């Protein structure tokens, strides 16, 4: 079975936002990046499916040269090879542009299964995977919590809201967006890191003429909707003051 995993590189969770001068994007120079968390779960799921059913796992990413780092990390965790659609504009591109870029590179590979995270921790459109499925002319399902495969038949557990789930069956090929927590992540071993150095990452140019489907006019730190009273001081003093506030002002204790 030939499995593709689409991975995005995003700023780390600890990153403190700093805006670019034009306030239309972030200042990229001082950002530290990591693998988008839901994508890491998609990769883990792909590796587990390969262990069960054989085949290969190809990791795909559309982004500037920096994203080679997360592709290499995915190879170190066990993926077989990488596809890197490289262009600077992909760092801040919308879901349509990214899906078009990936589709152009992935179409001829005829993957049996394409996995990706349910959304990215940067722009968070929650669209790219589904658009990619449409571009690849394969069915999709989203927010998946379990994947079972028997021959060409796929059985998946989809998460609904409020603690509800649903099983869905369909045939391969298909695209699934994976929910965080579907499995326990593995980390790269030293052996894996060494092996990854010899694995191939194929660079693919971005197709020309891709149109933005939306533009960011401005980015800003959210305006507070509430007045927050920050309580300072040593832990015991802060605790004393907080308890006083909750009893006397908020009257919730």
């Amino acid at each position, binding site marked *: 079975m030939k499995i593709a995993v689409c991975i995005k590189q995003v700023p780390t969770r600890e990153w403190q936002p700093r805006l670019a001068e034009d306030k239309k994007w972030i200042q990229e120079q001082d950002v530290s990046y990591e693998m988008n968390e839901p994508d890491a779960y998609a990769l883990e799921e792909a590796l587990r499916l390969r262990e069960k059913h054989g085949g290969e796992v190809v990791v795909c990413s559309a982004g500037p040269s920096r994203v080679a780092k997360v592709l290499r990390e995915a190879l170190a965790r066990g993926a077989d090879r990488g596809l890197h659609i490289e262009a600077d504009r992909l760092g801040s591109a919308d879901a349509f542009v990214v899906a078009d870029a990936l589709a152009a590179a992935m179409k001829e590979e005829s993957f049996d299964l394409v996995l990706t995270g349910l959304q990215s921790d940067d722009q968070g459109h929650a669209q790219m995977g589904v658009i990619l499925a449409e571009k690849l002319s394969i069915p999709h399902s*989203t927010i998946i919590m379990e994947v079972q495969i028997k021959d060409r038949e796929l059985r998946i557990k989809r998460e609904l809201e409020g603690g509800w*789930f649903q099983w869905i069956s369909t045939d391969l090929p298909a695209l699934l967006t994976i929910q965080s*927590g579907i499995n326990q992540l593995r980390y790269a071993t030293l052996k894996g890191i060494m092996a990854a150095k010899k694995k191939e990452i194929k660079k693919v140019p971005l197709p020309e003429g891709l149109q933005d489907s939306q533009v960011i006019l401005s980015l800003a730190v959210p305006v507070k909707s509430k007045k927050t009273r920050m309580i300072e001081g040593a832990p015991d003093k802060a605790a004393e003051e907080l308890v006083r506030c909750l009893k006397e002002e908020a009257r919730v204790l």
Partner: protein
Amino acid sequence: MILVVAEQKNGKLNRATLETLVATKQLSGDMPVKVLVLGGSVGDVPSEFMASQVQEVLIVEDKLLDPYTSEAFVAVLQEIIETEKPSIVALSHTYQTRDFAPMLAARIRSPLITDITALKGTGNSATYMRPMFQGKLVAEVSPQGEKPYLVSFQIGAFRVNETANDSTPAPSRKVNIEINKASISMKPEQPFQEAKQAVDLTQAERIVAVGRGIKSEENLGIVENLAKVVGAQVAASRPICDSGWLPMERQIGSSGQTVGPKLYVALGISGAIQHLVGMKGSRTIVAINKDPDAPIFEVADYGIVGDLFDIVPALVTELEKD
């Protein structure tokens, strides 16, 4: 015209649709608004839309729409959009919308803006505010390209003011659409709930919730101590339940429960948007986090920047004094 796609299950309207109607009202300016209700059987849902707000309710009923598949939904929406020619299609940013709206957008080559929390301007020239970078930033975005523009509104972002239903229901019209059965490859089974909910967090008066900042399962004891002296239920953000440290039924947020207790204490929770939508309606919110820029402080009434491993035991000691 703006077309609102209503979400219903077994003839019961999803409240998120009413919020989307509020957002649409603000967005519409002088544009007329129509509502599409689709499903296997939609019951009385069409009569919930009032003539004072909605020009017409379109109804599409077909067995192939229940249970839901993206393929059947997109087939119906594509045809409705072709005949009705809306310039904006308004949706609620639910899991179901997330499953079919990008497919619809790709098929009709329309832009899709998701998770909208606020609007600027009206009609076709409106711009949309949406969170980015886990809510650390808010972006103002503008759709590009062909109409209709597809837009989905974040749950909880637009408040529904309860008004008496003193006006008459909007006129409704059934629309027949032939759905090609062969185009549906997904075979969904009936939805189910994993576990009987042992606790109903929605009824809790006080909640002490814990996030990544707790670091390991062994540390949960201090959270339970605090909950005990406060008389609160223990809840958690998604990563804690994903790790199996607390059961799924204790999860607050877009994939868990939405709560509005008198007191909500967030310990080591950064406040990703998925968590905030589940708790920002709480009356008094206390946030304790070592990161002064954590988004949780945006919604907090009281905040302490510091190490929860120092502050929580100090709080317990203080509360035990009484």
